[in-house]
C-alpha cells in the first residue's frame, strides 16, 4: 500500500516512484510520463505558482501523439475556422492578421487553472490576449495568424493538461447569457430599491410610533418610496406576474399567484394610500382621525413599499441561485453537441485525407486507426480488429470484427487499422436512435408536483376567501375601515414566508450538495428522493471505474521466476499494444527493465514477443498454451495466461493474470448505507453474467440482472414503476440514457457521457458514490426543515389572521411581522448549509490498490 500521490493529478503513485519532475528545486513524484511532461511544461513557463494556488487537483493527462497534432491542424483551415473565429477588435486596425477564437476548455477544475492557462498562452509569441471564464470554461484567444497557427495554440493547451475545443456561441448560448444578465439587473434594481425604501420605512415607522411626524414629511417620504418601489415592482417582479398570469390561464394556483397578489396588492394599496389623499380631499387634509388605528375615509392608510421591495429581492435571490445551477449544467451538456466533430481519414482520389466527420456521406470509404472512434455506422471492408462498444452497450471488453461486420458510430477501434464503408451518417446512426429513445422516455416522465405549490394553491384560495369575507363583514360595520382591514389581512397572511419555506430550504440544500460534488439540476430531486425505494446502479463506469486493471497474479509452479519478474515480462509485451488490457499492465510496472522484440499482435488472442532469448506469449489460455488445457484458477473474471517457449512449438505456461474492472473504493460502503436506509439496491448491467454476479456479490447486492440492453433496462424500471415503486437510476454511458430519462430520479456520474449528463436530474461531479447516500440523508434533514418552515409560516399566518380580521393589527405591524417571519424561515433553511454530520469516506489509496498484490509486494 502506498500513500505517495502524483504531484500533478494527485492520483496514487506506485512505489518506488519512477517519474519525477523538478518543481521549485524539489523532485516531485509523478504518476506517469504525461503528468511529468505537463508539470515540466508548467515549470518551464515559470508558472509553478499554479501548484501553490490550486484548490483542486488536475486531471490525469493523456499522451500527446502524432494523431492529435494532425487532428488539431484541421482547425487551421479557414472553412473550419469560420464557425468560431472572427477578426480581432478593430482597435488595432493596422494588424490585419489578428484573429479571436472562442474555445471551450475541458479540464478546468479551479481558479488556478484559469491563471495557468492565461499566463501560459499569453507567454507564447504571437498570442496577444487570452482570457478564460471560470464559470463557463469559455476562452477568448486573440492571436496573430501570421506568427502562430491556431493548431499550435491548441497544442500548447493540451501540453499543460487541458483540452480545447472550438466553441460556437449559438443562439441558445446567447439566450442563456441574456437571461443571466437580465436577472442580475432585476436583482440589482430590487436590491438597491429595497435598501433605500427600507431606510425611508424606518423613518415612517418611527414617525408613526411617536406620532409626531409632520404630515408633509410623511407624504414626501411616501411619494419618494413609491417612486423607488415602482421600478422594483414593474421591472424586478415582472417574472412573477408573468408566471402567475400563465398559472391562471391554465387554471392552477401556483406559488407565483399568491406572490403576485401579495406584491401587486400591497403595491396598489400603497399607491392608493399615498395618492388618494390628493383626489378626495383637494389636498387640504393632512390629519389622521383620532382614536383609530386606521385613517378615516379620506385619510391615507398605510404603505408597504418596503415589504414589497424586500420580498421581491428575497425571492429573486432564490430564483437566481436556481438559474445559475441550471445554466451550469445546460452549458456542460451542450458543450459536446456544439463541438466540431472529431476528424476522420476519408479516401479522396485514392488518398486518405483528414476531414471533419460532418463531411462524410454514405458510401464514403474511411480509414480508422487504432484508438480512434468510428465516425459513422458502416461495414468493415478490409482489415480485422476488435472494437470497444462500451459507449453503446456498456460491455467494456472489445468485440472482434471481421470484414463484412457492422461497425457502430462512436465505438472505439482497438487493435488494428481498418477500412470501412459508411452506410449511415448523422441522424440515422444507432447513437442517434438511442437519443430518440431518450426523448420519448423524457416525455413519459411523471412530473413530481411540488409540495409548496400544492399547499400554496389551497392556502391562496383560503386567503382570498377570508379576505372577501372580511371585506364584506367590515363594510357592514365600518365601511371606511373595510379596505384597510382587508389589506392588513392580506398583508398578514402574505404567503411570503410560506412561499419562501420550501425554496429557501431547497436552495440551501442544493448549494450544500454542490459543494460536496453533487450537482442537482432539476428541482424535484430533493423532494423526490424521499419517495425512492429502489436504487438501480449501472455497473461499468458507475460502480466500477470503467478501466481495466490487474487484480491478481498467480505464478504457476513450473516457473521459477519471481512474481515481479513475470509481471515485468508481461508488461514488456503489453507495452506494444493499444488494447485496454495493456493499459492495466502499464500502470502496475515501475519501469521496463526488459524490452520485447519482434512483437506480434494476434487479433483477439494475445501478444507474442521475444524477451532475452526466449519467446513469450500472453493472452487467451488457448492461444498462450495451445497444446495443453490449463484450467483457470477461478471461474469468474478474465484470466490471461503467459507462457514461454524456446523452440516456438512447445509452450510452457508461466503465470496467470486476472484482469478486472476495478470497483470504486466507496461503492461497497455506499451500498451498505443505502440498504441500511431501507432501499432496495439493484445492479443492471449489459455485461456477461459471471462478471455481474461477482460484482454484485462483492458489493453485497442481492438483486442483479446481466446482459441487459438499453431497452431491457428501461423495461425493467417501468415494470418496477408499474408496481408502485419509485426508482433512482445511477448510470454513465450513452446506453444508460433512456433508462436515466425513464427513472423517477436519475443521477449521472461526473465523467459520464455528456448526453447522460443532460438527461440526468443530478450529476455526481466528484465521482464519489458516497455523496448519493449523503444526499438521501440530507433529504431527510431538508424535509424536516421544510416542515418546520411550513408549520411556522402557516402557524404565524393563522394566528395573525383572526387578529387582523378583527381590526386589531395595524398594517405596519403586519408588515413587520411578515418580514420577521420570512427572516426566520430563511435563517432556519440556512441551517442545512452547515457542514458537519457527513461521515468520512475511505480515500482512494486505502481500498483500490489494497487487493492488488504486485504493488503490495513491490
Amino acid at each position, binding site marked *: 500500500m502506498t500513500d505517495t500521490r502524483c504531484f500533478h493529478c494527485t492520483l496514487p503513485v506506485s512505489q518506488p516512484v519512477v517519474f519525477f519532475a523538478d518543481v521549485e528545486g524539489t523532485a516531485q513524484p509523478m504518476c506517469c510520463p504525461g503528468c511529468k511532461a505537463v508539470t515540466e511544461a508548467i515549470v518551464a513557463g*515559470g*508558472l*509553478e*505558482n499554479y501548484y*501553490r*494556488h490550486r484548490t483542486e487537483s488536475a486531471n490525469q493527462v493523456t499522451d500527446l501523439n502524432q494523431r492529435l497534432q494532425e487532428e488539431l491542424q484541421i482547425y487551421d483551415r479557414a472553412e473550419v475556422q469560420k464557425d468560431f473565429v472572427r477578426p480581432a477588435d478593430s482597435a488595432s486596425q493596422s494588424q490585419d492578421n489578428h484573429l479571436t477564437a472562442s474555445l471551450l476548455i475541458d479540464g478546468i477544475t*479551479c*481558479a*488556478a487553472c*484559469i*491563471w495557468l492557462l*492565461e*499566463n501560459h498562452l499569453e507567454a507564447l509569441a504571437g498570442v496577444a490576449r487570452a482570457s*478564460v*471564464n*471560470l*464559470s*463557463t470554461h469559455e476562452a477568448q484567444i486573440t492571436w496573430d495568424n501570421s506568427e502562430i497557427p491556431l493548431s499550435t495554440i491548441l497544442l500548447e493547451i493540451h501540453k499543460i493538461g487541458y483540452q480545447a475545443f472550438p466553441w460556437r456561441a449559438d443562439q441558445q448560448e446567447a439566450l442563456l*447569457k441574456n437571461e*443571466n*444578465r437580465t436577472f*442580475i*439587473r432585476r436583482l*440589482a*434594481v430590487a436590491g*438597491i*430599491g429595497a435598501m*433605500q425604501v427600507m431606510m*425611508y420605512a424606518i423613518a415612517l415607522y418611527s414617525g408613526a410610533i411617536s406620532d409626531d411626524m*409632520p404630515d408633509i*414629511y410623511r407624504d*414626501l*417620504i411616501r411619494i*419618494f418610496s413609491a*417612486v*423607488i418601489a415602482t421600478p422594483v415592482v414593474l421591472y424586478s417582479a415582472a417574472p412573477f406576474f408573468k408566471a402567475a398570469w400563465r398559472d391562471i390561464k391554465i387554471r392552477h394556483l401556483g406559488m407565483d399567484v399568491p406572490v403576485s397578489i401579495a406584491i401587486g396588492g400591497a403595491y396598489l394599496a400603497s399607491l392608493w394610500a399615498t395618492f388618494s389623499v390628493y383626489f378626495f380631499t383637494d389636498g387640504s387634509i393632512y390629519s389622521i382621525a383620532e382614536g383609530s388605528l386606521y385613517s378615516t375615509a379620506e385619510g391615507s392608510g398605510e404603505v408597504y413599499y418596503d415589504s414589497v421591495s424586500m420580498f421581491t429581492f428575497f425571492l429573486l435571490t432564490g430564483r437566481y441561485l436556481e438559474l445559475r445551477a441550471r445554466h451550469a449544467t445546460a452549458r456542460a451538456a451542450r458543450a459536446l453537441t456544439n463541438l466540431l466533430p472529431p476528424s476522420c481519414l476519408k479516401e479522396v482520389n485514392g488518398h486518405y485525407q483528414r476531414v471533419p466527420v460532418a463531411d462524410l456521406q454514405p458510401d464514403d470509404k474511411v480509414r480508422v486507426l487504432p484508438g480512434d472512434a468510428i465516425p459513422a455506422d458502416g461495414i468493415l471492408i478490409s482489415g480485422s480488429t476488435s472494437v470497444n462498444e462500451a459507449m453503446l452497450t456498456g460491455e467494456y471488453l472489445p468485440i472482434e470484427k471481421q470484414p463484412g461486420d457492422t461497425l457502430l458510430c462512436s465505438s472505439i477501434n482497438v487493435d488494428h487499422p481498418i477500412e470501412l464503408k459508411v452506410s449511415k451518417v448523422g441522424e440515422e446512426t444507432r447513437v442517434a436512435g438511442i437519443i430518440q429513445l431518450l426523448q420519448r422516455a423524457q416525455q413519459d416522465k411523471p412530473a413530481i408536483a411540488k409540495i409548496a405549490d400544492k399547499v400554496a394553491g389551497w392556502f391562496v384560495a383560503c386567503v382570498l376567501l377570508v379576505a372577501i369575507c372580511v371585506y364584506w363583514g367590515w363594510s357592514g360595520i365600518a365601511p371606511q375601515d373595510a379596505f384597510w382591514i382587508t389589506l392588513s389581512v392580506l398583508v398578514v397572511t402574505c404567503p411570503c414566508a410560506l412561499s419562501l419555506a420550501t425554496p429557501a430550504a431547497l436552495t440551501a440544500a442544493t448549494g450544500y450538495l454542490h459543494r460536496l460534488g453533487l450537482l442537482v439540476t432539476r428541482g424535484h430531486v430533493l423532494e423526490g428522493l424521499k419517495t425512492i425505494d429502489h436504487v438501480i446502479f449501472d455497473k461499468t463506469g458507475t460502480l466500477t471505474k470503467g478501466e481495466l486493471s490487474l487484480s491478481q497474479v498467480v505464478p504457476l509452479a513450473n516457473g521459477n521466476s519471481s512474481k515481479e519478474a513475470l509481471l515485468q515480462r508481461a508488461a514488456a509485451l503489453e507495452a506494444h499494444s493499444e488494447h485496454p488490457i495493456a493499459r492495466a499492465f502499464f500502470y502496475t510496472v515501475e519501469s521496463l527493465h526488459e524490452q520485447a522484440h519482434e512483437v506480434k499482435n494476434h487479433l483477439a488472442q494475445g501478444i507474442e514477443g521475444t524477451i532475452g532469448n526466449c519467446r513469450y506469449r500472453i493472452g487467451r489460455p488457448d492461444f498462450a498454451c495451445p497444446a495443453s488445457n490449463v484450467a483457470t484458477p477461478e471461474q469468474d473474471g478474465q484470466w490471461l495466461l503467459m507462457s514461454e517457449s524456446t523452440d516456438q512449438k512447445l509452450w510452457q505456461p508461466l503465470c496467470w493474470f486476472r484482469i478486472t474492472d476495478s470497483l470504486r473504493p466507496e461503492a461497497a460502503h455506499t451500498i451498505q448505507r443505502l440498504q441500511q436506509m431501507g432501499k432496495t439496491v439493484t445492479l443492471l448491467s449489459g455485461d456477461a453474467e459471471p462478471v455481474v454476479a461477482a460484482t454484485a456479490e462483492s458489493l453485497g447486492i442481492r438483486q442483479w440482472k446481466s446482459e441487459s440492453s438499453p431497452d431491457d433496462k428501461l423495461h425493467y424500471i417501468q415494470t418496477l414503476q408499474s408496481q408502485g415503486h419509485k426508482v433512482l437510476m445511477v448510470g454513465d454511458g450513452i446506453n444508460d440514457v433512456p433508462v436515466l430519462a425513464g427513472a423517477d430520479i436519475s443521477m449521472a456520474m461526473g465523467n459520464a457521457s455528456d448526453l447522460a449528463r443532460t438527461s440526468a436530474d443530478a450529476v455526481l461531479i466528484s465521482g464519489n458514490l458516497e455523496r448519493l447516500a449523503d444526499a438521501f440523508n440530507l433529504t431527510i434533514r431538508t424535509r424536516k426543515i421544510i416542515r418546520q418552515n411550513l408549520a411556522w409560516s402557516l402557524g404565524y399566518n393563522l394566528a395573525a389572521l383572526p387578529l387582523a380580521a378583527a381590526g386589531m393589527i395595524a398594517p405596519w405591524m403586519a408588515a413587520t411581522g411578515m418580514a420577521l417571519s420570512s427572516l426566520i424561515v430563511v435563517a432556519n433553511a440556512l441551517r442545512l448549509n452547515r457542514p458537519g454530520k457527513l461521515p468520512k469516506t475511505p480515500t482512494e489509496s486505502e481500498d483500490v490498490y489494497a487487493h492488488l498484490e504486485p504493488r503490495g509486494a513491490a
Partner: protein
Amino acid sequence: MESLIILIPLALILIAVAIKLFFWAVDDGQFDDLEGPAHSILFDEPQQIAKANAHDHK
C-alpha cells in the same frame, strides 16, 4: 427636517446613478464570470517576485 426636501430627491438621483452604473457593468460582461476574477488577484504577485529572482541570478 427641511433638509429632507433636498436630501431625499438627492438620494433618488444617487440611486438612479447607481443602477445606471450597475447596468453598464452587467452589459460590460463583468458579471458573466463571478468566480475567476476573485481568485486571479492572488496569483500575480508571487509571479513578479519569481521573475525578479530570476533576474538576480543573471
